[in-house]
């Protein structure tokens, strides 16, 4: 793992009133690695990835993407640069079918423009879009749902669809916000199975509060506690770290 850092944060801090949600975090995400951030509720995980994906602007510090300062860019601009994310509460288009959801996501990447009048003349069933979308439909095991209206699908399928929507635009970094929340065990295994396929050649950052599901496919594990990353390293060493044991396991027995 000697790849260059894709995302670097330098001393980012976010306060809500008197409460410091994220405190002076220095952090590095390397190319093609899968990194999981764990921590109890309220540890600042979600705030931290909101800072990375541009939903909040930090009060202090910098966010770098491939060495370029992106601290002040909006979330849409960051998506255009190649930082895509999913949400803890699924964000998909309930009134479109699965195929159209993915198609819209890929189309934006293909046109590389926020709006064009070609949208009127083009169709999402064009062969090049279809090829790409169907490839990802297969990879995500949702090919059989292609024509289903998303609003009628169970949560697990929606989650997989949302992850697929993040992947299909082929961003450099994909940030997953609690991809397993609200899912049953079997559904979690399905999502894990999908993520494993990608963990080798994509840069993934995911947050979760249950460590058990992450262990077998993340390259590195970081632990967040009271707004700070208290440890970051390979899974085993992180979990055996004395500070982690003290701060994390005590709170999460």
């Amino acid at each position, binding site marked *: 793992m000697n790849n260059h850092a894709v995302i670097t944060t330098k001393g980012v801090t976010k306060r809500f009133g008197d409460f410091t949600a994220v405190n002076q975090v220095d952090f590095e995400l390397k190319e093609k690695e899968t990194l999981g951030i764990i921590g109890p509720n309220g540890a600042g995980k979600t705030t931290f990835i909101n800072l990375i994906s541009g939903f909040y602007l930090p009060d202090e510090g910098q966010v770098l993407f491939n060495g370029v300062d992106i601290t002040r860019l909006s979330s*849409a601009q960051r998506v255009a640069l190649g930082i895509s994310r999913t949400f803890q509460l699924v964000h998909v288009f*309930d009134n*479109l079918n699965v195929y159209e959801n993915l198609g*819209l996501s890929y189309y934006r990447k293909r046109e590389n423009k926020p709006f064009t009048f070609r949208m009127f003349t083009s169709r999402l069933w064009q062969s090049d879009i279809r090829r790409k979308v169907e490839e990802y439909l297969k990879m995500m095991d949702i090919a059989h749902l292609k024509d289903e209206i998303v609003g009628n699908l169970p949560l697990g399928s929606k989650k997989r669809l949302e992850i697929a929507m993040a992947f299909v635009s082929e961003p450099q970094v994909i940030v997953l916000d609690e991809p397993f929340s609200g899912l049953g065990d079997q559904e979690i295994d399905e999502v894990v199975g999908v993520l494993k396929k990608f963990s080798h050649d994509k840069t993934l950052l995911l947050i979760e509060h249950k460590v058990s599901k992450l262990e077998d496919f993340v390259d590195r594990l970081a632990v967040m506690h009271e707004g700070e990353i208290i440890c970051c390293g390979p899974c085993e060493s992180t979990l055996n770290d004395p500070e982690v044991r003290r701060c994390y396991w005590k709170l999460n027995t």
Partner: protein
Amino acid sequence: MDKSFLSYIRGPIVMIALLVAARYLFPNKMTFLFEVSTFGIYIIANDILYGYMGMVSFGQPFYLGIGAYTSAIYLAHIGHNIFVAIGLAIIMGLLAGLLFGPAYIRLRGDYFALINAATCAMGLFMVEKILYPITNGDDGLWYRSRFHETPFLDLRKPADVFWFTMIVLFLVLVFYTWLDRSTLGAGLRGIKASESKMKFLGYDTFKLRWTGFTIMTILASLAGSLYAINYGFVNPSITEPARAAEVLVATLLGGGGVYGPIFGTLAFMGIKDFVSSFMDRWELAVGVLTIIVCFKFKGGVWGTLQTIGAKFKTGKAKPADAVSGENAG
């Protein structure tokens, strides 16, 4: 998933064939069928706003009035050519969309609905009072005698206007089918479901909305122009804000999809026709019906037909077309 050219015109042809068949089966209902076709175009326009982008406007008669009055003023004061009158109405619709769009579409749902109502009231005021010298105010404009003969179809004759309306409706339906299947159509529906996700994917939702809004104004204006030509006169009642309700109800009755607006119009006009034969006004029936549709048949007439069709095919219920279902209300 082959979407050949034929698939774009198959549906519209069937639709038009049905209307034409009805015209010969019920010869005395020609005016009714003309109104259904024209009102259908008007509802299609509103459906682009409501069914696709999820925006409600209480000022639709204003956009209808733009087309009607543009054609009427041209025919009454300037020229005699009906096709030019329609062309001008379309251009004015385009201009209205480009002009009002940027200011209005940024507004939250309820404000959007009401500012359209305000626009509509001001439009009514314009044609009634300020533009009195050219619109004749409440007396209306009469210009049928000024029509010049047109080639192929003589638009001075109601029977030929009916055929002409059928052609226009056919073109609008093909356009609408195309829009529905285009990336733009999917994008507009995406905005309805979750604008924030569309923004997040990197789309410029402002321009998308603006485009949708402008298509709406053009189609509404076209419908208004057809009214003006068929009746040979216009008066300000066409732009009355009170008539904004009809549009919403018919759209809701139809329930999205490509043919929803037409079915909605048929249902609405049919009920109106039926109810008004034994009751002074139709508000009561339409109000009750809308509430029933709101709570029981979320897919509207078209959605319900599709559900029944699906039941027939597979033997079990399939959810209604979600274009207007679920959160459409």
